[in-house]
């Protein structure tokens, strides 16, 4: 195979991987519309990618390996990443002796959930809740190139009642990170993707906003919205199950 990066059979892969900028992606879409062979190749690659998505790692190392690594570099295991039960105990204690602001620092995921909620609320007050407005993930995803270090996972949930309406850059822990904005009826749902510690499982509620965090492929995802808890859970379920970039 030729190594020319502009070979159409390489471009179709770059297109499926969201590696083309919006102008080139659009031009390539037109080209595929006229070339059934390229369109068929795109369909096969997308199908292949969704088969691959099922093999994604859980993003968790075996506990014995983690312990071994921590021992090797002299890290005391118990001082990091409190478990929920340890956390509950510490909250009981600290609730008496400390302010709420102090124990927030002990929560797995640090201050990320609070910053995610803050960004969501700020976006609701802005003229528009996104920096790039588009319902097309092939427009939204490439837009983040050059705006954030990581390229976000963008999925299409329009047929489930959660249309994508745009994306924006949030600053979490002093780092620009990608956020996607979905709509559910009259509510907005923000999904922020952060390189960081694994969020704790379960739903937490802050100032009327529900927050659900999860880990996928080494990236921490935080979904925040004022929709009902059940609806947010359903959204997260659909988001996680959806094939990437399809």
């Amino acid at each position, binding site marked *: 195979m030729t*190594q*020319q990066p502009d070979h159409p*059979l*390489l471009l179709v892969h770059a297109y499926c991987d969201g590696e083309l900028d919006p102008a080139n992606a659009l031009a390539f879409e037109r080209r595929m519309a006229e070339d059934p062979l390229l369109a068929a190749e795109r369909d*096969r690659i997308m199908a292949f990618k969704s088969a*691959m998505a099922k093999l994604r790692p859980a*993003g968790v190392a075996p506990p014995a*390996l983690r312990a*071994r690594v921590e021992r090797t570099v002299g890290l005391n295991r118990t001082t990091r990443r409190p478990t929920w039960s340890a956390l509950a105990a510490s909250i009981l204690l600290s609730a008496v002796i400390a302010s709420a602001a102090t124990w927030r620092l002990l929560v797995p995921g640090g201050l990320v959930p609070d910053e995610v909620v803050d960004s969501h609320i700020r976006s609701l007050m802005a003229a528009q809740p996104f920096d790039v407005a588009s319902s097309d993930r092939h427009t939204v995803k490439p837009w983040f190139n050059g705006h954030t*270090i990581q390229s976000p996972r963008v999925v299409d949930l329009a047929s489930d009642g959660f249309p994508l309406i745009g994306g924006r850059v949030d600053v979490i822990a002093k780092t620009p990170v990608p956020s996607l904005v979905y709509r559910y009826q009259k509510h907005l749902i923000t999904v922020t993707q952060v390189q960081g510690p694994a969020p704790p499982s379960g739903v937490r509620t802050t100032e009327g906003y529900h927050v659900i965090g999860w880990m996928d492929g080494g990236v921490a995802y935080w979904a925040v919205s004022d929709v009902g808890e059940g609806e947010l859970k359903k959204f997260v379920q659909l988001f996680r199950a959806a094939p990437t970039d399809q």
Partner: protein
Amino acid sequence: MSDERTRFANVVLPHLGDAYALARWIARNESDAEDIVQEACLRAFRGISGFGDVNARAWVLSIVRNTAYTWLKKHRDPRVIPVDNVEEVADAAGDQDLGPAAPDAGLIARADSARLEAAIAALPDEFRETLVLRELQGLDYRAIAEVTGVPVGTVMSRLARARRRLIARLGKEDA
């Protein structure tokens, strides 16, 4: 806790699961993967001051990747170590990567995971690592180029070839 340890805990530990997954794909064996990650973490710890705060995951994965190949060279048959120019070898062998394989997309999407995993394991190392970094670790082309130490054009070519081979294989076995 010393500065290095704090930094290690913040930079390396969040990516331990990914490190392990990558090592397992390269070594194709779980206990070797654990040894590789252990050694890679030690290297990362020693080199933590050299990490430039850019992309922690790519940095960790490139250390794991390089450690894996040195480790395998030391502990396994040296013949299994990848050749530098897999593209040329594949061409010389009359590689059918661009052949008219055209299985149905629905068939591919429904491919059995165990069979897909076995097919990936059988790929040449360069193809397999490129595919795993893209599809399972979600790195973009530029990050894959950094981790594997090749130009972006080579990443594109390897990824395309890896997918073509697997797509053809899935179509054939299911037919």
